Every structure is written in C-alpha cells, then in structure tokens.
C-alpha cells in the first residue's frame, strides 16, 4: 500500500460519510451526484489507465459545480414559468391549499399566550362552555416571516385539574399585530382528540376543519361550498370550473414560451432589440477605440530614440493596475452632471456641459469614455508584444525609398500585426459584451428607457438580464434565464470562432 492509497482513503471515507449525511437529510439527488463524484475520483486516483485525469480532476470538479451546474440550471429555468407571481414549486403551492381551514361551528376556546424565555411561547386554552377542559401546548416559536415552509400543527395536551399554567400570560394589548398576532393566526393547533383549532378574531380559538379535500385525480374539492379546483400546469395556476385562477401561482414547465416571449411580446421585444444593438455597438467601439489608442501608444513607445519611455509606459499602465471597481466609482464622481469635475472644467472653458446622467447619448458617451480609459492599457501591452516580433529589416528597405513613418505603419506594420491580433480582439469583444461591472456601477443602466419597463438606455444585455432577475419589482427568473441562455449562445459562438481562428493561425505559422 502506497502513500497514494492512504490519501485516497483519507478522502473517500469522509466523502462517504458526507454522502450518508446528505442522503439521510432527504436530498437523494445530491447524494447520488456526490456518490458518482467519489466513485469517479477513487477510480481516477487508483487505476493507472486514468492517470492523466489525476491532474484534471480537482479543477474539473470546481468547474462543474460553479460553471456547468449554473449553466444547466439556467437553461432549465429558462424553460419554466418562474417569476414573482410563480415563485413556489408545485408541492408548496398545493400545501398552501391543504393548510387552509374553515370554522365548522364546533367549540370555541379562550386563550392565553405565555412567553417562555426569549422567543418561545406556550399556548393555554380554556373551553368556553366547559372551563374545566383546559389545554396547554408544547413550546413553539412565532416568526414573522411571510412565507416560510409549511408548518405542522402544534400539539396540545390536556392539563390536569388544579395545575397552574406556567409563567405570566401576556395581556391582550401586548400581543402586537405584526410580531405576535399575525404569526399566531397563521398557525394551527391540534387537540388531543384530533380536533384542529386556530385563532379566529381577536380573542377566541375555534374548532376548524380542512377546507380542501384531495381527490384522486389531483383536483381539490372545497368542502364549504363544493367547488373544485385543479392545477393547470400550462398556466402555472390552480383554476376552478369556470377557468378562473385561484390562489398563488406555482412554477411550471412551459417549454420555449419564454423564448417566444422575447420575439413576440412587444413590451419585451422593443427594449430587447434596442439593448441588443447598443450592446454590440458598445463592444465594437470599445474594442476599436481601445485598439487604436493602445496601438498608437505602443508604436510611440517602440521608438527607441524617445526619452523617458519606461516612465511613460509605467504611468500609462496605471488604469490596468488599479482595481477597476475603484476607478469606475471615481469616474462616477467625476462625471456627476452638476458638481463633477468634468462638467466644471467644460463650463470653465465656456463649452457646453453634456448631460452625462439624464441624456441617453450623454450616458452612452460617458460609458464609452470610461471604458476606453480602462481598456487601452491592455491593448497597449498586447500591441507592444506584437511589435517586438516584427523584424526591423523590413523598414530598412522602405527607408531607402524615402518613406515616412505613417505610411510605414499602414503599409508594413499593420498588415503584419493585425492578423495575429484577431483572436485577442474577438476575446475583448466578448468580454465587453458582458461588461457588467462597468455599466452597473457607473449608470446602473440609466436613464430609464421610456416605455421600456425596467430597461435602461445604457443597459447591456447582461445588466438588463440581471435587473429582470433580481430587481425587487416584477422579477422574472424564467425570462431572465432565457435571455441569459441566448447571451451564452452569442458569446459561446464568438469563443468557438476564436478557437477556429487561432487554430488556423497556428497551422499557417507551422
């Protein structure tokens, strides 16, 4: 037995224990996945035929967990109806129905709420008609959360005659509405004889009965008025016989509906198309502008007779060295419409002061300017490397013809340098296509697009999608995931193209 075997055992045993824990806590799928990973790992590190994968395995696990899983999850969500009005999974929506009760005219009870320590309470009940029948609950907590998991009814036990309820009961005014009354009203209690009771009005608990009866075909019957509802999975709602929606929506599989919505729904399609074109324009201008400035500086700094070249280079790299979050936020202050340094300077020169925040094109110009400032050093570094690979002999011939540097650059340097730059330009395009941090921190997509809902004039597809998914009003995970999937296809295609391009380049070079 070698060290390798010991190490494998040291990883596999705790892994199996974890797997056991996951299984017993009710997540069978997670347990299965973990088991497969453990098995695969053991095989890779024990069998010599899988030797090469030993170097890949740890990296691929992390990659699978935090890149591939989120991707598949997003694609899956994009095929479902999942939004603020369809938040719960089906079984949770169903259990909300099953929780509903109605008063069936049985006995009613007076109650006292007895605090026990910080958060726990006891409920004490006295039957109205027969005060000698008294009940006490087990300790329970009252949380003010709006939609927690469905809670089991709390059990009550009969109190022995003469026994006093423990602790000091709260007076009625102490039972505050938000913190205590509402949570208490949402709970059900179970008497020893199986009667379900719940708070009705301010003072009384009454015997209650489940409102909905489960039928074999999945529908529910209302025991109070005899009506029936059944889940409609294409709508993501329970509907009654008249076809009206009842209760809250649930998540449901919809196929390509979210994708169809992007194309057909004018409220989505309008902003989407505009944002799409702005995203392309933004990425293209960022790449071209960054390349132009970067190449210009690289060529200048390549001029050996120029003094202070190293000092210049160091200072010019600065925007790349400073964490970009900080520079973006600094620029947010500099471009402030009223008090920012940029407009103060322009006003001082008696030039016009652009509306960087409220005018759509002003905001777009600001984003581009800031992105150029952030992006040119990278291009400069890359171009400097490229220029080094250009043999200086090619210039000697043209120098004899008496050419000038400008024509030299466009006739000789650029045709040599540009082709190998293409993959870098495509990658830079893809990066800017998803440049979330810049837009989110600088303008947050603003100014708002008129009639575009949450869409903003400077939104990129990626920030628009983020807002669709996470802005608190009207979140729509399904639609956001559909756009995210499309976005991935666009950028993924670019990456694939890029690989093809550089593969061809390698072939040409070889």
């Amino acid at each position: 037995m070698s060290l390798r075997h010991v190490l494998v055992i040291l990883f596999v045993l705790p892994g199996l224990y974890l797997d056991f824990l996951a299984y017993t806590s009710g997540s069978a799928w997670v347990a299965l996945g973990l088991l497969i990973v453990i098995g695969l790992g053991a095989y890779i590190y024990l069998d010599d035929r899988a030797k090469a994968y030993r170097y890949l395995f740890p990296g691929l696990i992390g990659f699978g967990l935090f890149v591939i899983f989120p991707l598949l999850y997003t694609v899956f969500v994009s095929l479902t109806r999942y939004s603020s009005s369809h938040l719960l999974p089906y079984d949770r929506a169903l259990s909300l129905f099953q929780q509903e009760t109605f008063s069936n005219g049985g006995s009613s009870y007076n109650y006292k709420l007895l605090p026990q320590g910080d958060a726990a309470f006891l409920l004490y009940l006295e039957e109205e008609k027969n005060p000698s029948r008294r009940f006490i609950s087990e300790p329970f907590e009252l949380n003010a959360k709006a939609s927690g998991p469905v809670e089991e009814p709390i059990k009550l036990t009969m109190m022995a005659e003469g026994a006093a309820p423990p602790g000091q009961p709260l007076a009625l005014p102490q039972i505050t509405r938000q913190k205590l009354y509402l949570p208490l009203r949402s709970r059900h209690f179970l008497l020893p004889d199986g009667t379900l009771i719940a708070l009705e009005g301010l003072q009384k608990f009454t015997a209650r009965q489940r409102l909905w009866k489960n039928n074999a075909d999945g529908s529910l019957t209302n025991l109070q008025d005899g009506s029936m509802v059944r889940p409609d999975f294409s709508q993501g709602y329970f509907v009654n016989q008249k076809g009206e929606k009842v209760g809250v929506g649930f998540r449901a599989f919809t196929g390509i509906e979210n994708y169809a919505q992007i194309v057909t729904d004018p409220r989505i399609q309008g902003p989407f198309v505009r944002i799409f074109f702005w995203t392309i324009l933004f990425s293209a201008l960022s790449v071209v502008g960054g390349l132009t400035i970067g190449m210009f500086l690289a060529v200048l700094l390549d001029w050996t007779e120029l003094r202070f070249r190293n000092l210049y280079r160091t200072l010019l790299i600065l925007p790349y060295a400073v964490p970009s979050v900080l520079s973006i936020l600094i620029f947010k202050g500099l471009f402030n419409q009223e008090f920012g340094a940029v407009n103060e300077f322009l006003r001082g020169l008696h030039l016009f002061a652009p509306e960087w925040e409220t005018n759509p094109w002003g905001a777009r110009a600001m984003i581009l300017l800031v992105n150029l400032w952030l992006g040119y050093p990278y291009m400069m570094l890359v171009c400097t490397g490229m220029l080094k690979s250009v043999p200086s002999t090619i210039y000697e011939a043209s120098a004899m013809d008496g050419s000038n540097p400008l024509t030299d650059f466009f006739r000789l340097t650029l045709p040599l340098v540009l082709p190998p730059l293409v993959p870098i330009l495509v990658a830079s395009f893809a990066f800017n296509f998803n440049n979330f941090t810049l837009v989110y921190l600088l303008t947050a997509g603003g100014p708002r697009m008129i009639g575009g809902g949450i869409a903003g004039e400077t939104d990129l597809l990626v920030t628009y999608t983020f807002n669709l998914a996470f802005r608190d009003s009207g979140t729509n995970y399904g639609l956001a995931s559909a756009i995210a999937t499309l976005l991935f296809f666009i950028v993924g295609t670019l990456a694939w193209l890029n690989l093809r391009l550089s593969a061809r380049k390698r072939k040409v070079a070889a």
Partner: protein
Amino acid sequence: MRPELKLKLRKALAHLCLISIVTLVLIPFVMVTIASLRKGQFPPSALFVKPDQLSLEHWKFVLGIPYRELVNPATGETRVIQASPSPLLWVWNSVLVSGCSSLGIILLSGTAAYAFARLRFKFRGSILRALLILQMFPAVLSLVAYYVLLDYAGQHFRVIGLNTIPGLIAIYLAGISVNIWMIKGYFDTVPASMEESARIDGASQFQTFVRILLPMSAPIFAVVFILSFIYTMSEYPVASVVLQTSDTWTLAVGANSFLYEQEKLWGTFSALAVLGGLPITIVFLLCQRFVASGITSGAVKE
C-alpha cells in the same frame, strides 16, 4: 525642412501626446487623493485644496481610529466617531479572498495545464475547448444558481455557506479556464527534453512535473497570480450577492456601500479607495515586466 529639425519636431509632438494622455490618466488619481484629505464629503473634483481645508478624518475613519467630530459649532459639542466594523477589515477580507483564490487557481489550473500540455488522453482537445467556451457564460447570470448552491452547502456546513468568505472563494476557484490556456501556452514553449531524460533516469511523472517543469515556469505563475488577484479584487456582482453583512464584505462591496443613492460619502470612499488601491497598484507596477510578457505570450500562444 532639414531632417534634424523634422526629427526634433516629431519628438516634441510625441512627448506632447504622451504627456497629455498621462495627464488624463493621472488626474483622477490626484483628485481622489485630494478628496480623501479634504474636510467634508466632496466628490473627487479638485486638484488643489487650501491648507485649512485639510483633514485626516476620512483616513482615521477607514483605519478604524476613533476621532472627535464637531456636532454643534455653536456650543462646541463633539462626539467620538469610530467605524464599526473598520473599513480596514474589508481591505483585509479582499486580500484574503484574492490571495486564497489566486493561490487555489494557480494550483488547479497549473496541474490541469500540465495534463493538457504534456499528457495524451481521451477527449483532451474537446475538454480544452469546452472549458474555454463554457466559461463564457457570465458569472452574473449564474447568481441564482450560486445562491442555491451556497444556501444548500451552508445548511450542512456553516463555513462555506452564504455570507461566508470561503463560500465566495469556492466560486472564484472555478474561474480557471483562461488561466489553463495561458499556463499551457507557456508549458508548450518549455522543451520537454529535460523531463524526458529525467524520466529515463527513473523519476516519476509527478516528480518531473514538480521538480523540473514547475521551477522553470515560475514567471507564468507570477503572472497568473497577479492577474487573478486583480480580477478578484475588482469583482463586484458575485461578492455583493454572496456577502450580506458588513463584517464579511470585500473592498469592492464596501467601497460601493459608501455611495448610497441618497447620500454619497465621497470623502470616506476616497480614503478607502486610496488605501485599498495603492498596495495592489504598487505590486503590479513592480511586476509589470512579468505581466506584460505574460499577457503577450499567453495571448499569442492560444
């Protein structure tokens, strides 16, 4: 025009261009430094400040040093102000997150790059390409899934759940594919002959990797470390969702927290920006030769 004069003119023009661009680059940094030293919460907008407007209050605040602030000028009433938690903690959190994730990324992508560069196995090319293409899925759009994952992990192990630094590091560790390509590009330029002769002398594969290839590839690892460090330092969206309470925040999340919609604390922000940005900038500039060569070699060899 005489050629010497022409050359001189050209040089002057070049210097003029460079100096004006350098000025544009430097102005924001000068302004933010001034704003951090200026009394009151002014956005970075001034290049000079009168000596009587100078104050160290923002620096004391971000360093967590208590100081007295005048509440009522008429009565001379003051109160003691001390940040809690000290914003210095966010800088430390950032360094911790970036340091650990960059180290982890080096480890994971270095070993993977070795396999891709030196070993032959099934699906080698496909995995290599798939890694690059799949990583194009923007992390921002994975946030829902990250939330689900960390929430689940946190129910069993508090340490890697939501609102924890290890949880954030785990997510960052997945960003390996670009680095794998970069390191592989470097490995490809290192001749394999030395490793082969070591193998003949009886060294194991792992030994040749650790003893021979790794020492020769130190520069590329320095580059990958610095680039990942800067990237994770600047990462905002994922950190802002995973880290929820101010004691776990990173520099990026904390700095943005000073700029609320209603009240923008520009002075405090500026001090934090200088404090957090300066060390990493200096390190980067010291290593810039390394980084420049790494970027070009990694990019060209793809």
